[in-house]
Structure formats: C-alpha cells, structure tokens
C-alpha cells in the first residue's frame, strides 16, 4: 500500500531555534494516526507543516503523492480540496451563520445550485448531531458544538484525508467520547485517512491505529497502541503515566538562564 502521507527527514527552525529534527513518518490509507506529545513538543508546528501553512528548512512532505514543500500556491490549493482540517476551536467565521460556514467550501469550489449546497451542508451537520443549528451564529454555540461544526465544515467536500487538531481538548468527558466515536465512524464508513493531534491519552488509545510520539522536536516512537504502550522509553512513559519531567540540570546553563550572564565568564 502506498502511503497517503510520507514525511522524510523534516527539519524546521523558528529563528535560530530548531523545532523539528529529522522527522520520518508515513501514514497509510484508511488509518487513524495519532500524533502525541506534551506542550512544546513541536506537534502543533508539525501539523502546520503537514497542512502546508509553513515551509520547512529541509526535508519533504508528500501528500497524496505530491511534495507539498515544492508546490505553487495553485497546486497547493488544488491538493487542499482533497484535505479537510478541523481546528482546535472550530475556527468558524464569526460573521457567517453555522450553516453558511459549512456551505462555504462548496460555494467556493463547486458549481452546485443553492438547494443542493444547503442540503449537503445540512447532511454534514446532521452527522455531527447539529441539525437545526444551521441558522445560529457561531457565538451562540458551546465549545463542543463549535468543534463539531468545524468538523462538519472540514468534511463537507468529502476529503480523502482529515486532520484534526486536539479533538478532545477543553471538552467534558462525554462530549469528548462522542467525538472519538465520530472519528472512528468516519474512518469506517467513509474510508478516510485521519491524522489526529492530541495530548489526551485516553482518546489517543481509543481511536488510534498507530501512535507517534513527539518529544522536543524528535519522533521518539511510532507504532501500534500496544507497541507504544509497551515501550520502555522513559519520555514516553513519563507522558503516559503523567510523571513530571526530571530534566538533568546543567548547573552552568541554569545559572546562565537565571542571570543572563555566562557563569564561566564571570
């Protein structure tokens, strides 16, 4: 099977600081891959690179066979029509109703008539248990509803790949569990390839076919849920067991950070 997403030797910088280092990853068709990592691990940056919102320092990212690091804007836009992205807070446009938000991609990219567009948008909202909410403004929805509406908008073009940023962050456990079910259903019924970025263990273990763990800009391990659980990598176990990090403290570096002076220069 050809990989849907193939990342090779991805290196990225923010200013002088190296954020991602030598990332290698492939995502297979119809699989749910979960990218895990604590805050500051680089997982959000990694997602932005996968979406083509940022250009890496080096390395390639092939999505559906095309290297997105070398595409023109036009080619990138063409590719993105096959990709859905659900953002953390939904990222709905405040000036449009929920329905208009979901209809937007159809209006921009298809020549369907008004009724068809409305029906297709309502179908997606129905799927997200949001029927009847299409005339409301995003400001009238709760956090969980915004997320689901954002997901409906991401799915309205029937994408081949879905990216989902932090599906369960900030939701109560019941709503989070419902979203997990929904993600599984999408893969099973529509055959989508799904990449989820999260730091929630429970949700990751429930939905993932494979998990990859990012730590300080490097991929520590990639494997099935059982493989990743069984690993004896300390960082991964810290993350799983909610253990605080015990970074070995370099005395000079610590002083340097505190004082702003190099200790050895004093």
């Amino acid at each position: 099977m050809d990989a849907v997403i193939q990342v090779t030797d991805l290196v990225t910088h923010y200013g002088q600081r190296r954020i991602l280092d030598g990332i290698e990853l492939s995502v297979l068709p119809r699989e749910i891959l979960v990218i895990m990592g604590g805050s500051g691990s680089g997982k959000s940056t990694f997602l932005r690179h996968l979406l083509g919102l940022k250009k890496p320092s080096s390395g390639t990212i092939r999505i559906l066979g095309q290297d997105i690091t070398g595409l023109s804007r036009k080619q990138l836009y063409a590719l993105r029509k096959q990709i859905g992205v659900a953002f953390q807070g939904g990222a709905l446009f405040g000036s449009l109703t929920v329905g208009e938000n979901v209809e937007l991609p159809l209006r921009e990219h298809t020549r369907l008539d008004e009724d068809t567009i409305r029906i297709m948008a309502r179908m997606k909202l129905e799927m997200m248990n949001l029927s009847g909410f299409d005339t409301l403004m995003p400001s009238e929805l709760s956090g969980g509803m915004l997320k689901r509406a954002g997901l409906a908008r991401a799915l309205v073009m029937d994408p081949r790949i879905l990216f989902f940023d932090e599906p369960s962050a900030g939701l109560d456990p019941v709503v989070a569990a419902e979203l997990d079910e929904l993600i599984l259903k999408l893969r099973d019924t529509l055959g989508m390839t799904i990449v989820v970025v999260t730091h929630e263990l429970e949700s990751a273990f429930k939905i993932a076919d494979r998990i990859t763990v990012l730590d300080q800009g490097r991929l520590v391990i990639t494997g099935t849920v059982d493989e990743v659980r069984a690993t004896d990598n300390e960082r991964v176990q810290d993350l799983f067991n909610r253990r605080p990090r015990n970074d070995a403290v370099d005395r000079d570096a610590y002083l340097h950070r505190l004082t702003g002076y190099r200790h050895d220069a004093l």
Partner: protein
Amino acid sequence: MINVLHRLGDSSLGFVEQAGRLLLFLLRAIASAARPPYRWQALLRQVHFIGARSALVILVAGFFTGMVLSLQFYDTLVRFGSVSLLGSAVALAMIRELAPVLTALVVIGRAGSAICSEIGIMRSQEQIDALECMAVDPYRYLLAPKLVAGVISVPLLTSLFIMIGIVGGWFVGVVLFGVSEAAFFQGMYETVTLHDIRMGFTKSLIFGLLVVWITSAKGFFLHLERYGAHGAEGVSRVTTDAVVIASISVLCADYLISAIML
C-alpha cells in the same frame, strides 16, 4: 554602547522587515482584487460598512469643521477688509486639505480599527489558517474586498464632507455673520479650479488605500509581531498600533501629495 548599537540595528531590521511585508501584502491584495471573478457581494458589504455606516459621523464632523473654519476665516478676513473672500477660503481649505484628511482620520477611527481587530481576531482564532486549508485565498476572500471598498468609500465620504462643510461655512458666514450670500458663492465659483478638486480627489483615493492597507495588514500579520501578540491583549495592542501608524501615514502622505501637486 554596543548595547545601544545592537538595539538600534535590531529595530531598524525590524522596520525594514515590516515595511517589506506590508509592501508584498499590498501587491498581493491588489493582484487578487484585479483578477476575476469579482466578489460584488462582499464588496458591497464592505462599502456599506466602511462607507455608508461612516456617513453620519462624516456629516456631523463636516458640518462643524465648516462652521469653525468659517468662523476663523471670518475673524481673520475682517481685519483685512476682505470678507468677500470667505466663500472661496472655506471651499479651498475644505477641498484641498481638510476634507480628505479629516475624512481619512474619521474612517481610521471608525472602520480602520474595526478592520484591524476583526482580522486580528480571525488570525488568532486560526480562521485565516482555516481559509487557507479550505483552499480559499484569504487575500481574495477577505482582503481584496476591503481594500477596494476603502478606495471607493473614502473619496465618496470626502465629497460628502466637502458638501456639508460648505453648508456649515455658509451657515456661520452668511446666516450668523451676515456676509452677502452672492459674494460667498460667487467667490467660490471663481477661485476653485478643477485642479483643486483633482488634488482633493487624489488625496482621498490614496488615503482610502492607505487606511485599509495598513489596518488590515497589521491585523493579518498579528502572529508575526516582533514581541508576540496573543489573544485579546495582542489584538488590542496591534489595533492601537495600526490606528497610530495609519494616522501618521495619512498626515505624511498629505504633505507629500500637497508638495507634489501644488
């Protein structure tokens, strides 16, 4: 000493970087506005927002500006015994200088700040990323209609300002101080040339572009602010910056255009 030099270099680098970014932003927005299909509906909404909804403020501001102008000119002209010049003085000052500048400043305060904070919030809530990811070009979808609407609305508002300003001047000069109505308007006809109107119009066109350009770009590049801009605090700080920079740019541009066209 090294520290001062370092900071000086750092901030001038920052300035050059920001200027370059703004210029590219403008070019890309203009290019997207020029390419069909055009977004008439979005354009109409923006003209309504920037133009129509500023009209009332412009009417009030214009009327009072005209009144105070007439008052000051009357006081001065009486000393030289040339009150008959009142009409042309008011009209020339309005058309060439005050109406374009004050209209631009009103639009910055009313619409510019709103544009900047709206786009800034869209940036910080990932809505602009969402547009990108839906393969909808934010320059075309979001920015081009605003830019074109600015270029359309500001000249229209300026002409409104001029008209109501002359009415205000007439009210103080003719009605309150009893200057002859015929002299007031005859002087205006005789002195105001097409060139004066062209100058006012050129100014208002350029100001319209400047105002929307600077305020929307500041919001759009919220995430690239040098000292970080996050959430509500970031949006409010960037909006303040945008209003200040836009106002100063308008005043600088005003001098430059006057110097070139006079």
